[in-house]
Structures are given as C-alpha cells and as structure tokens.
C-alpha cells in the first residue's frame, strides 16, 4: 500500500513533555477534519524486513475527530519596528540607507528597509530589484506606486552602501550606491535624482521593516532579502550618500546628533532577537523567523573570529527568504498527558475523519513523553537524540547535494516525503542543507513539521533508534526515556535518578550542557551504554532566545556539507565556538572512549575480539559467546553491526588510559573513508582497505565512584539486535552489559587508572 504521509502536517509546542503535563499540537490540512489517536512507539520502522511497526494505542483526551485548518507556512526573516508614525517621512529632508551584502539577486525585488505595503500600495521603501539595482518605492494616493531605479547593479557577495534622499522642498529624490574598494577593485559611487510626484502616500500605517515588505496589513511579509544588512539609518537632514555612509554613529556622552531619527546597531544584542536603535528615539525592534546574527559585517578586520571580542565587527544580520523558526499555526488540540503514562517515543496518528475514508492517508507527529515530576524512575534511562533529529530535520541531501549519490553508491532512493519537500520548500530544511542563497542553514527548529522524525519517514536517526527500544521491550528491561533537551536544560540533574543511561544510534549533536551533564554523571558513578556511532561530535547549542532552535556552525573541519564563512564559527545564541567538540578540546574519546573515524558507504563490517578483551575486567561482557566469533556479521537494513558511521579509540584524543579496546572492526572496504579531521595531507591509502584508522572500536572503562562506560562505536550496531529473533551475539553482549550496569555493585576502577 502506498501511504500519503503529508495530508496532515503538524508539530508540538514542546518536543518533550513530562507525564502529567500538557502538550499542544498545531495541525494543518486541506481536509477539514482529522481523526487523532495517540501511539506509544516500540518500533517505528514500517520496513517489512525488520522487527515490524510496533506500538500501543493510548487512550487520551484528544482521541477522535477535530476540525482542522489549512495553515500556511510563511518563511522569510526580517526585523519589525513599531514606530507610532515616527518613521514616516515628515520633515523637509529624509535620508536613509544601509550597508548591504546581497547573497541572492533573482526572481523578485528584495526589500532592504521601509514601511511599504504591497497590498495597499502605500508607504515607502528601499529595495533591490530582481536585477540587483537599488530602487526607491513610493506610494501615491492614486495611480499606483512610483519606482525610482538607479540603473547600476549590485553584485552578489560584495558589500555596498545604498541610500535614498528625499527632498520634499525641492520635490526631488536621489538614489545612490557606493561600493567601497575591495581587493583589486577600486571604490565606485553612483547616484541619480528623480522628480517627486505631488500626491505621495508614504504612510502605510504599519511597522517599519528591515529585509521585507508588508504583504498586507496582517503582519504577513514578502520580498524578503537574501543577504546581510548592516547599520540601517534614517536622518531628517539633507545628506548626500557619502555623508550618510560615514555619519558618525558613535554616541558621545552629553551629545545628540541633530536630525538622527533612527540607527539600528545590530552589534548590540547579537545573542538576542532584539535589535537596538541607538538614536534618542529608542525605536527598538524584534526579529522575525530567526535570521542569523554573529556574522561578519562590513567592518570585519579578520583579526578576531569571535563576535564577543569585537561586536562592532559583527554588526550585520544575515537574512534569508527561507528562514523558518516558528510556523505560528493555531493550536488544533491539547493533550493532557496522564501522569501514569510510561515515558517513551510517542506520536499522534492522523487519519481522515469518518465520511472521508482514505485508508492510504496516514500521517504522524512525533513527541516524547518523559517521566512525570512524581513518577518513580526506572534504573535505566534512554536519552533520545533530539539534537540530532533537529540537525537532520527535513534533510534534503538526497535532493540537492552534488556528491550524495556517490556517497550512497547507488541510485538515490527518495521517500515520498522528499518529493513533498521538493514541491513545498517552505517547510524548511536541515542544518545539512543550504539556504536558497547557497549559505548553510545554521538553525533547525521543532516548531514546524519534521517529515523525517516520524513513522513511515526516512529511517536515519529516530526510526533506527526505536530498534533499541524494541530490543529493550523484547528483553523485558524496564527503562525511562528522556531527551537530550532535558540534559541541555537541566544538566546532570536529569540523569542523577538513574543507575545507567543509554544513548542510541546517533547522538551526534551535543551542547555544552549535554556534554558536561554526561561527564558529571559518569564521574558520579553513573553507567553509560553508548550504543551509537559518530557520537558527541558537533558542538552546537539551543538558541537562548529561540529555545526550539538548534544552532550549528560547521567550522572548517569535520564531515560537513557546508562550511562556515570566514569568521563565522561562533554560535550566535551562546557565543561559544561551534564546529567539532574535538576542536574544543573535548573529543568524544574523552567522554566515551571512542570518537568519529569514518563513514561506511558500501559494505558493513563486524567486530572481532582483541587480546585486551581477555582481561577479567570485561569477562562479564562476553559471557555466552565464543572467543573467536564474528560479532554482528548480520543485521537488518545494513547487514552488519559495524557500519554507516564509526568511531575509534585514541589515547591522544582523550580515551582514558585504562580503557580496554575489547573488539575492533573487520571487513571494511574501499567505501569506508575517513572523516577529514583524520588526515592532514591527502595521500594514497586513506580508505578502509589500507587505513588502520578506519575502524570501529568497542571499548569499556570504569569511571569514578563505581561507574563505567561501554561504547560500541557504530551507528548500525542497534539494527543487529533483532537478528534471528533477538538471539544473536550482539544481543547477548548488550544484555550482559545492561545487566551488569544495572547491578548496584560498584564497578571498580583498576589501581593506577
């Protein structure tokens, strides 16, 4: 049966909800009604070759039919400034302009600043037209707007200053462009004057906008700018463009600047969504749909790479016409999660209401239920990798990446969700993708539909993770589930009730709080079963002012599909350096003994035990298995427990000295290729057939106060658990580890460790 998975779309207001609390769902459909059920997922994988789609239907207060609105997504970021009419040109002179760095000139005009309303045809604005020429747009009482075009094109990715001067006394307007010298190109200046018509209507009655026009009077915006804008300013004085450009905006004590109406200094509050006007009018504003701050401005010297050290060099904001933080849909239903529900991965199942039979139409909205404030805790907690789910949310790699088919080594298989993403790009893509202007996407939020975090969606990450939950259920192991968002918000307190924690197949994206929480937990006697690969890799952060958004900066190394612009590696939200944890002195090896080594693009491998595995400290792990068995030369989907992305032991990168490398991978081939930070010069012999660093290592080590860590170093490990009706050597050793880690007897660190 071919399922229509996008007839209903939706998202929760909070990604995880403690039992006993409420979560609101925002749903949208062209169908007027929706039937809602709540499922607790055991295995979310619909592939008939795996363990099967397993779930429990939970009775809830939102079961049944709900009216459903067709709610649009309107992407595009901009700034909004309420001004009580102060920013309507009223004086004899009105001069305004800004530095701009357009990154996409195409298709339609792009607004820079103004209050222009496309719907009413009132207001004024400075924009770039579809060819990149600066345009002054002025509303008229009748006869439609006038557009004064300076017939000189700006170039993409070149800083320029554009300005307009209105002289109502002389009934003239001037549009100007100054392109400061850069590299071998000398400075250039262009200007053109126009006669003002008599019956202007420059008051749209709406807020002043930067980087967009008003579409209508309903706070909907259009003509979003793609690119950076810096230091927009307005003066009610006669100034030519160069005077306006070099106007001294620094505030001196006890002095005000005559005729200064507004000057927005974006270097102020880089980690916020507020923009500050440093004029005496205090026309502060706010940002809509999370444009990127902490980006280099016109005045960037290259001497610093951290905006916190020199904010003035980072006084630009990079706006995108396809930025999306919050769809802002109306709530369809609010689920009161009963206090006695088990924690876990949950999903709304959305199907047509009665009278609208369509068995093929089935959609999901995933959320996570965590233990209630009063809930008695299990001994084991699984920490779902929401950071990773967000980083990959609506990944369009299969659609738009040059290298992706070569990476996968087969004709790309696109789920129907990919077709939906191609045809509906407004849904927003992942932090692996690029904006329409070619710049990498730094933000991904859960306040929008996420197609690949659902049953019937692409399996990488969440669906693969449910194979581990399925195995825990099969083995009758009691567990709680929380997400790494709890680690980010609550730190080690989120883990302290538990004797052991388990991270699933791909916990790749970790914030400072998440890393420290796990380290503190392990050192306090906690036990950590690290089931995945490519784990604890990117240093990222949730944006403090947009807490549903993960922020990622790709840096200059690591396996990555885009690279940060020079000087733009620091996270705007927290200021800390993005890029790899390895480059912040906290490689994954330091936390769990292994860290990213390679991607497996072809055949998966298996593990063989090492001599170190004969140490009696790890005898418990291999009970019930043979000394020379191949561990995991089988598995669902990947056909091997060593695959996809793998991690290795390295003392120099922080693997504890007493860690035991108890097994290592075998059987990797030419399609096993190292991650770029694993070689410094390109030489022959990099692939898995020759390169000994291309491997997965299984490690064990004890931590302080009776704790321990076991790490598998491979993403595909979890998909081998169900092989042969859950009776196999990967299942056996995992169960041995779980049983010992849940046993309260201390695990003793060897002397001298």
């Amino acid at each position, binding site marked *: 049966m071919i399922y229509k998975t996008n007839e209903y779309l939706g998202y929760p207001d909070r990604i995880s909800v403690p039992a006993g609390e409420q979560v609101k769902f925002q749903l949208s459909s062209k169908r007027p009604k929706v039937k809602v059920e709540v499922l607790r997922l055991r295995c979310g994988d619909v592939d008939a070759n795996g363990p099967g789609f397993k779930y429990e239907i939970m009775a809830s207060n939102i079961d049944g039919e709900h009216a459903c609105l067709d709610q649009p997504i309107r992407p595009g970021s901009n700034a909004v400034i309420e001004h009580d009419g102060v920013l309507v040109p009223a004086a004899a002179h009105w001069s305004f302009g800004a530095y701009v760095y357009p990154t996409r000139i195409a298709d339609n005009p792009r607004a820079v600043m103004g209050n222009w309303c496309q719907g009413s045809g009132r207001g004024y604005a400075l924009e770039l037209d579809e060819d990149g020429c600066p345009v002054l747009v002025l509303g008229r009482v009748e006869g439609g707007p006038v557009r004064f075009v300076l017939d000189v094109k700006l170039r993409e990715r070149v800083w320029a200053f554009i300005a307009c001067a209105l002289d109502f006394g002389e009934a003239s307007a001037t549009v100007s462009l100054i392109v400061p010298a850069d590299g071998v190109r000398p400075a250039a200046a262009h200007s053109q004057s126009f006669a003002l018509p008599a019956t202007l209507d420059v008051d749209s009655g709406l807020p002043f906008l930067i980087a967009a026009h008003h579409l209508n009077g309903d706070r909907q915006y259009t003509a979003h700018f793609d690119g950076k804008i810096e230091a927009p300013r307005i003066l009610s004085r006669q100034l030519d463009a160069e005077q306006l450009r070099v106007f001294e905006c620094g505030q001196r004590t006890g002095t005000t600047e005559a005729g200064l109406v507004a000057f927005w200094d974006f270097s102020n509050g880089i980690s916020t969504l507020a923009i500050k006007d440093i004029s005496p009018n205090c026309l502060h504003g706010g940002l809509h749909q999370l444009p990127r701050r902490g980006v280099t401005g016109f005045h960037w010297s290259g001497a610093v790479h951290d905006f916190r050290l020199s904010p003035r060099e980072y006084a630009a904001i990079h706006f995108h016409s396809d930025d999306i933080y919050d769809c802002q849909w109306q709530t369809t239903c609010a689920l009161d999660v009963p206090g006695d529900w088990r924690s876990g991965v949950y999903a709304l199942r959305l199907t047509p209401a009665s009278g609208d039979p369509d068995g093929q139409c089935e959609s999901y909205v995933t959320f996570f239920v965590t233990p209630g404030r009063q809930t008695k805790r299990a001994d084991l907690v699984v920490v779902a990798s929401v950071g990773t789910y967000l980083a990959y949310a609506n990944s369009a790699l299969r659609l738009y990446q040059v290298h992706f088919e070569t990476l996968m080594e*087969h004709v*790309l298989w696109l789920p129907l969700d990919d077709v939906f993403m191609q045809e509906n790009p407004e849904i927003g893509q992942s932090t692996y993708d690029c904006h329409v202007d070619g710049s990498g996407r730094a933000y991904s939020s859960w306040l929008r539909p996420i197609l690949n975090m659902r049953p019937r969606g692409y399996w990488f990450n969440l669906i693969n993770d449910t194979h581990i939950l399925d195995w825990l259920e099969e083995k009758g192991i009691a567990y709680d589930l929380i997400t790494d968002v709890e680690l980010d918000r609550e730190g080690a307190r989120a883990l302290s009730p538990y004797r052991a924690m388990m991270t699933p197949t791909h916990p790749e994206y970790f914030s400072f709080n998440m890393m420290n929480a796990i380290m503190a937990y392990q050192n306090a006697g906690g036990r950590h079963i690290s089931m995945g690969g490519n784990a604890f890799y990117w240093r990222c952060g949730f944006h403090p002012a947009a807490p549903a958004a993960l922020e990622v900066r790709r840096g200059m190394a690591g396996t990555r599909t885009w690279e940060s612009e020079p000087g733009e590696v620091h996270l705007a939200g927290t200021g800390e350096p993005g890029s790899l944890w390895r480059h912040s002195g906290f490689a994954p090896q330091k936390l769990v003994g292994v860290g990213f080594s390679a991607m497996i693009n072809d055949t998966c491998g298996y593990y063989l035990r090492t001599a170190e595995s004969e140490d009696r400290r790890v005898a418990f792990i291999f009970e019930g298995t043979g000394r020379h068995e191949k561990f995991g030369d089988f598995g669902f989907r990947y056909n091997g427990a060593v695959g996809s992305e793998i991690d290795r032991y390295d003392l120099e990168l922080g693997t504890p000295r007493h860690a035991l490398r108890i097994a290592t991978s075998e059987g990797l081939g030419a399609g096993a290729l190292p991650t770029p930070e694993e070689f410094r010069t390109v030489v022959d012999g990099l692939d898995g057939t020759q390169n000994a660093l291309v491997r997965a290592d299984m490690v064990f080590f004890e931590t302080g106060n009776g704790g321990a860590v076991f790490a598998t170093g491979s993403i595909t490990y979890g998909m081998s658990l169900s092989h042969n009706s859950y009776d196999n050597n990967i299942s056996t050793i995992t169960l041995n580890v779980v049983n010992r880690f849940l046993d309260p007897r201390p695990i003793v660190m060897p002397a001298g460790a």
Partner: protein
Amino acid sequence: MDHTSDPNAMRYVIDPNRLDLVEEFRASPLGVHSPDLRKLLARMRWGRPEGRLVLIVLEPGKAWRLSRIPRRRGDPMPFVDDRVFTSLAEAEWHVFKLRWQEMTSVALPAEMLG
C-alpha cells in the same frame, strides 16, 4: 568550490568500448565492484543534482518509480514513466543503461538492452 560540491570535479571519461564494465555491472548492480567500474560509477553518479535520475520509494523495500530532480526548488516532481520497479538491482541496471546512453551517446549492443 570544494570537491564534494563541484559538479565538475570528476574527470573520468567513460570509454564506450568498455563493455566489460557494463557486463560486470549487469552481473551485480549492487555488489562490490572492480576499481575501473568504481571509477565509471563515480562519474555517472556525480554532478549537478538538477535532472538527476532518482528512485521514489512507493513502498519501503517493495516498489520504486523513476523520477528526476527538478530544476528549481518548488517545482513539481513527476515520475519519468509508468514503470514500477520491484527490485532495486533491476532499477540500478535500468538507470545504468539510460546514463550510458546519455553520457556516451553510444547505444549498448542489443543483447545488453534486455
């Protein structure tokens, strides 16, 4: 431009006389391949996404149909034809033949077109 995002970064030229590589691929479209065939496949698989042949998964593990990546984001993404594949190997072979024709402008011998 870096290697992985430059659509022109693969310089291998497909030799239309290397029918031995065609035979090797046909025998095992999803198998482990010789170094020469790996180069040929890397060249076939590389390039600008626009117009790239892809398989749309109708039913996971069961049924696929051929489509192409459209020129612009937002454009519709229709199927290329009516054919429904029930084997990935069969689909790989089909796409290989189409690409061979497209990239070499030389038709494969009739006995290979089946």
